[in-house]
C-alpha cells in the first residue's frame, strides 16, 4: 500500500501541482521543494506531454517551457530522485508517454521505473476507466495508486466503474472544462461531493482553486483535500517572465501554499461541528 492514504488521514490534504522542469530543471527542483515547505501533503508532478488536451493555457505554457528545457520521461525520473521531499508524489501525465516507455509493450516498464524512483501514484487525464486495465494491473503489481478524475458529468454507472478502480484519492473536477485558476467556486463541486459520499476514498477537489478563501469553502463543503495547479504555475510563469530571483519565486510558492493550507484548515473547522451534530 502506498503512502498516499495516510497523507489524507490527518485533516484536509493540500495537493499542489507543478510541471517538472518548469522553467528549468534546477529551479523546478527548488519550487517543488517549496511546496512541501508550504505544507503540501501530496505533490502532483507533471510530466509534460506534447499534446496536453486536458490543460488550460496556464499549464499548457508550463508544459512548453518544460519541454523546451529538455524534459523527457527519463529526465523526469532523475528529477524525482533528485527531489528532496518526503511527502508522497503523484505523476500526472498523458497515457502515450506511459505506454511508450521501455522496451516491453504496455505501461508496465513505466510503472516499474516510477516505483523504483519512489513515486506513489498516477493521474492520467486522457485515460478513462474503460481503457485503464493494463495500467491498473501494473500499479497493483508495484503497489502504486491510480487516481481517477471524476467530472461533474460523471454519474450513475460510469461513476461506479471509476470508483471501483480508483485508489489513493479521487480527483474531483470542480467544474467542466480544462485546468485553470478561477475566481469562483462551482456549485458543481458540491453536487459531485454529494454523489461521492457513498465511497470512503478521499475526495480531493481540483480545477480552479486559487486562494485560501476558495480552499476554505471547498473544504467546508466536504472535500478531503484540495488540488491546486494553475495558481502555483502562474507564480512560476510570472516570476520567470519578470526575471525574478528563483529563491523569491520559491518563497511566493511557499506563501501561497501556506495560505491555501490555512484556508483548508478554516474550512475543516467549519465542518467539524456538522459532524458532531450527527
Amino acid at each position, binding site marked *: 500500500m502506498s503512502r498516499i492514504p495516510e497523507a489524507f488521514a490527518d485533516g484536509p490534504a493540500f495537493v499542489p501541482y507543478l510541471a517538472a522542469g518548469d522553467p528549468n530543471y534546477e529551479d523546478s527542483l527548488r519550487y517543488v521543494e517549496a511546496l512541501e515547505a508550504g505544507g503540501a501533503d501530496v505533490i502532483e508532478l507533471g510530466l509534460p506531454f506534447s499534446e496536453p488536451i486536458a490543460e488550460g493555457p496556464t499549464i499548457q505554457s508550463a508544459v512548453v517551457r518544460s519541454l523546451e528545457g529538455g524534459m523527457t520521461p527519463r529526465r523526469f525520473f532523475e528529477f524525482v530522485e533528485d527531489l528532496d521531499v518526503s511527502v508522497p508524489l503523484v505523476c500526472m501525465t498523458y497515457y502515450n508517454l506511459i505506454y511508450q516507455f521501455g522496451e516491453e509493450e504496455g505501461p508496465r516498464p513505466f510503472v516499474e521505473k516510477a516505483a523504483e524512483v519512489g513515486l506513489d501514484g498516477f493521474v492520467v487525464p486522457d485515460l478513462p476507466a474503460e*481503457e485503464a486495465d493494463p495500467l491498473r494491473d501494473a500499479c497493483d503489481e508495484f503497489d502504486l495508486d491510480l487516481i481517477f478524475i471524476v467530472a461533474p458529468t460523471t454519474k450513475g454507472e460510469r461513476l461506479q466503474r471509476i470508483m471501483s478502480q480508483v485508489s489513493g484519492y479521487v480527483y474531483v473536477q470542480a467544474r467542466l472544462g480544462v485546468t485553470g485558476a478561477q475566481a469562483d467556486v462551482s456549485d458543481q463541486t458540491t453536487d459531485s461531493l454529494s454523489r461521492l459520499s457513498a465511497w470512503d476514498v478521499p475526495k480531493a477537489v481540483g480545477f480552479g482553486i486559487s486562494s485560501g478563501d476558495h480552499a476554505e469553502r471547498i473544504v467546508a463543503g466536504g472535500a478531503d483535500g484540495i488540488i491546486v495547479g494553475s495558481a502555483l504555475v502562474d507564480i512560476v510563469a510570472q516570476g520567470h517572465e519578470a526575471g525574478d530571483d528563483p529563491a523569491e519565486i520559491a518563497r511566493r510558492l511557499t506563501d501561497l501554499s501556506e495560505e491555501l493550507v490555512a484556508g483548508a484548515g478554516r474550512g475543516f473547522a467549519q465542518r467539524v461541528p456538522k459532524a458532531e451534530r450527527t
Partner: protein
Amino acid sequence: GKFGEYGGQYVPEALMPAIEELTDAYQRYVLDNEDGFMDEFRQRLRDFGGRPIPLQRADRLSERYDREVYLKREDLLHGGAHKLNNALGQVLLAKYMGKERIVAETGAGQHGTATAMAAAHLDVPCEIYMGERDINRQRPNVFRMRLNGSEVNPVTTGRGTLKEAISETMRDWATNVEDTHYVIGSIVGPHPFPAMVRDFHSVISKEAKRQFDEQVGTQPDAVLACAGGGSNTMGAFAAFVPDESVGLYAVEAGGSSLTVDEEAGVAPNSASLSTGTEGVLHGARTKVLQDRDGQIMESHSVSSGLDYAGVGPELAHLVDTGRVHAVNVDDDAALTEFHRLSQLEGIIPALETAHAFAFLERDHESLGETVMVNVSGRGDKDLEAAIEETAKRDIDIAPDMSVFQGAMR
C-alpha cells in the same frame, strides 16, 4: 469501438458522458436511421451538396498509363472537397441530438469551411478553432468561414497548426460538453468518431461501386486515395473493403524525406501509416509520428491537409492486416502531378489529391487494368501555395507565370 488494437476512447473523463451519448446517437440515427435521419442526410447531400458526384473516365491519363483511369470527382461536392459529406452528417446529427452549438477544428481550413457551410445551412451556431499560423496562411478559407457566419478562434499554443487546434477544440468541448457537439474532421479521435465519419464518407465508394456497374460494367482493380487523417481514404475504400480483388492504396505525404529528426522533434513527412508507430493521440490508439519517448512530432507536407502526425485507427488496422497498402510520395512528385492533372484533364486538384496521382504516375504498371483515383478536392485553395512551392523547385512541366506585371506577391 476498436479496430484490432486500434481505436478506443482516450479522452478526459469530462467528455466520456458526451461520447457515450454520441455513441448512442450514432447507433440510433446513423446505423438504425431513426426518425429518418439517414434519409434526410442523403437528401441534403443531394440537393445541397450535389450528389451523386460523377465517376469520370480520364481520357488522357488512360492513354498515358495505358489502362482505364477513372476519377471520382469529390472536388465537385459543394465546398470543393469530400469534407462536406462528414460535416453535413455531423451537424445534422447534432441537431437530431438537440445540441445547440457546434465546434470544430481545422488545419488548412477545408474541414472548417465545410462545417461552417453545413452549420449555416442547418442554422446551428458554430465556432472553429484554427491555429494562428494557419489563419494567416489560409486567408481565403478563413474568409469563407466568417462569411458563413462561423466564429474563427485563433489557437496560439504550440506551432499554431492542426494538432494544436484539435487539442484546443477538445478543451472547448470538455468545457461546454452539455450543449455542444464537436464535429471532428477526419476518421480520428475517440470512438465513435472514426466509425461515424467513415460511414458519412462511405457514400463515396458506394456511389462509385454503383457507377462502375452502370457506366463501366466492371469494378476497379485498384482504388487510390491520398491519406492524411484518412477520411477521404476510408470513404473511397469502405465499400470496396469486402471485395479482396480490389487493391486499396492509401497514399501518404512523404514530404521532403522519410527520415526524422528526433532531436528537433520533427518528421519532415506525414506518413504515419508508412513510418509511424503505435501510440495514443487525440483520443485514439493509432499509428503516430512520435519520438522514442512518445512525444508527438511536428509533421510536414507541402499539402497542409495531409500535414498531421496521426491517422485514423481503422486505416492503421487495415494496413496491419494487409488489406490496405500504405504507400507514399514526396512533395516534389505531388507538385509535379498537380501540374500534370491540371494540364491533361482540366482539373486542378488539391495538393492532397495530387499525392494519389503521383503514386499513379510512379506505380501504374502494377495497378491492373482499371484504376479509380479519388479526386478528394479541388486545388483553388492551393493556388498560391502551389505556385510558390513550384517556384522553389525545378518542375519541368510547370507553366511560366511571368504574365503578371512586376513581381509575384
